């Protein structure tokens, strides 16, 4: 057992650091540091910068554009990106649809989609949840009927993150309603420009437009857009959920945000001193930091086991729970830290405007973030569902 970085690892860390220093566009950095929401163009710009360097599809097989890095190198890379506060890239293409296509897709699909996922020309969104199917995903009803060389799709998807920007959507659809509910599900790729696709915003309690309803009204999708066999969708969904949950812990960003909160405590005046002198508050911060360290090493242990034994298994459910717990607790501590200045209502437009903010700059995004982050224990399989997964797959119950 040896958990320290080798000389090669230290050199790699230096290489990543200098790359970020030289290539992270200052206008994006400024927005990030001030908590100003990024535009689609900002995110795509950073996506392309990483791709040009060959550092985008970190986990893909090397021959398809992956990095071939060790778990230590991946750990270092994610930590450096997070420490520099670079934009969070959308996972739907690179981390989700990409692996599905190169694992289960046809040669044609690989040839068409993989390069566009890498270069950021196609923005993907995920069509899983439906108004009637939340945690019970397999009960989904969006129907795809095969008619000649097309599937005719009818139904509705919900909670579709950033569908307003998306070019394509990957969907779980029902191709057979007769047998067990898991068996009649298929995985379909749909161009958002196809007639009959309509996107409607859902405004969330933080006042933002992040998620959407996506309606399908007699949408004709070429049968060549089916990934894998008909009825194979549920297996793909399970494969994908396991992939999704490992990154979901967001440990590196948590570390940066916790350090930032520590720094903020020195800037918040309390009487003649600062919040840093409040032992009760600081103790909560310390507890959270220890919990974060435990989660970080749990993730590293999981990754190490994975690199020895293949695909992420139910262990990723543990990370989903640990990570999202931490994200929510930290977002709450931020609210607690800024006190009354969490109360002014800041819209996305307010945050992006040049007008000076009410209260300290760091206070403005805190409450929207807290409210927005109620989602993390609900999405990607609610934390209760994750406990069911662990109970069944790990504890054998």
């Amino acid at each position, binding site marked *: 057992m040896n958990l320290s970085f080798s000389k090669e690892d230290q050199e790699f860390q230096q290489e990543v650091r200098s790359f970020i220093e030289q290539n992270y566009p200052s206008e994006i950095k400024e927005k990030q540091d001030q908590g100003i929401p990024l535009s689609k163009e900002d995110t795509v710009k950073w996506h392309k910068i990483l791709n040009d360097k060959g550092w985008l599809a970190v986990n893909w097989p090397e021959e398809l554009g992956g990095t071939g890095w060790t778990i230590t190198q991946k750990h270092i890379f994610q930590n450096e990106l997070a420490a520099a506060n670079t934009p969070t890239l959308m996972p739907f293409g690179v981390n989700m649809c990409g692996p599905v296509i190169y694992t289960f897709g046809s040669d044609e699909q690989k040839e068409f989609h993989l390069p566009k996922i890498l270069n950021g020309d196609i923005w993907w969104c995920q069509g899983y949840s439906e108004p009637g199917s939340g945690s019970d995903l397999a009960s989904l009803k969006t129907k795809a009927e095969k008619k000649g060389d097309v599937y005719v799709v009818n139904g509705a998807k919900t909670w579709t993150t950033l569908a307003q920007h998306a070019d394509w959507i990957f969907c779980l659809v029902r191709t057979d309603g007769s047998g067990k509910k898991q068996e009649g599900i298929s995985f379909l790729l749909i161009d958002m420009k196809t007639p009959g696709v309509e996107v409607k915003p859902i405004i969330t309690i933080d006042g933002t437009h992040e998620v959407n309803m996506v309606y399908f009204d007699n949408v004709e999708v070429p049968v060549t857009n089916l990934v894998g066999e008909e009825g194979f969708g549920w297996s793909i969904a399970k494969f994908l959920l396991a992939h999704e949950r490992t990154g979901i812990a967001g440990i590196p960003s948590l570390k940066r945000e916790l350090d930032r909160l520590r720094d903020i405590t020195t800037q918040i005046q309390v009487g003649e001193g600062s919040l840093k002198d409040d032992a009760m508050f600081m103790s909560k911060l310390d507890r959270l930091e220890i919990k974060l360290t435990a989660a970080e090493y749990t993730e590293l*242990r999981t990754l190490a*086991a994975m690199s020895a034994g293949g695909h992420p298994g139910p262990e990723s459910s543990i990370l989903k729970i640990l990570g999202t717990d931490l994200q929510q607790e930290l977002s709450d501590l931020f609210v607690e830290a800024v006190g009354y200045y969490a109360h002014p209502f800041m819209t996305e437009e307010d945050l992006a405007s040049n007008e000076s903010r009410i209260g300290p700059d760091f206070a403005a995004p805190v409450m929207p973030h807290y409210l927005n982050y109620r989602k993390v224990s609900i999405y990607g399989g609610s934390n*209760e569902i994750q406990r069911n997964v662990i109970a069944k797959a790990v*504890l054998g119950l």
Partner: protein
Amino acid sequence: MDFSLTEEQQLLQDSINQFIEREYTFDDRKKYLDSEKGFNDENWKTFGSLGWLGMPFSEVDGGYNGGPVDVMVIMENLGKGLIVEPYVPSILLSGKILADLGSDDQKSNYLHPMISGEKIITFAYIEPQSRFNLSDCLTKSTVSDDGFVLDGYKALVHNASASDTLIVSARTSGNQCDEKGISLFLVDANAKGVSLRNYSTIDGGKASELTLENVTVPKDSLLGVMDEGFSTIDNAIDLATLGICAEAVGIMGKMNEMTLEYTKTREQFEQKLSQFQALQHRMVDNFMHYEQSKSLLVMCAAKMNDNTEDKKKALASLKYQIGLSGKHIGEESIQLHGGMGVTDEMHIGHYFKRLTTIRTLYGNSDYHLSNYASL
């Protein structure tokens, strides 16, 4: 980064587990507890001959050059068997002190026979008022013509009644809580003026309250340099803290196993307890507590040889977590066993008691959290 154990460490793990399976059933353990010493001499000699007692010491000192990871492997597996032999007080505390400070003579008279299993040596340092502060020491030692004279009182001296020799911390200069001015002495357990009030501890161990009244020890009983004992005590407690945290992780893993097993057999309302979702989720939380504790244990074992601040931070994180998870898993395991969980007959309660004493030993969660904050 590499989280795997070496082949030797896996063999060590296997040999401890085999020993527990063969020689350490719950009935065996009960016999050992009921004996006067509170453990079994034969077992202790077996530990010596299998190399477990010498693991943390250098080859020059007659040991096997093991590091913190080896100590972790030993203690985690001893924990699974709820072993009562005095590995922590004798090997990890007294052994570490002797290895750090002992002269050649002291090592050959004390450390070597300890490693071979012939001698038990315990460490007396806790005082009624000291709580977790290692520099709070009122027991006094004064220089005399023949050597030193010790006076004072030590609390919770583990396995003192079975020890041939005690290592005693005593103030040779300075004020009650000064780090400087604490010295360490080898004291014969039968020396005049040494009196022990022996008792059993709630976790199945043995301990004593020790009174030192005008105890004269020779000049060569001083360990290391006069007044400079503190950092050695601190290092030994650090190693022992890693040890009991590993023990706790072993215990928690075992308790989770036992609880799962129990809920899979026990039926209520015409179904197995394990089929109730409310209980399943609680067992998942127990499992996650275990994983987090294990992660910090592994991290800490890997950082024991790092610079002082990193090591101290890792230890504070780990012991804080063990206190938290020990309470959670301990209490939940009893609850999930229902009424049976509070009977002496079931094994779970015995694991619970040891886990509960570990929460306090070498500082509870609050103490380690405040250590963490100060780093």
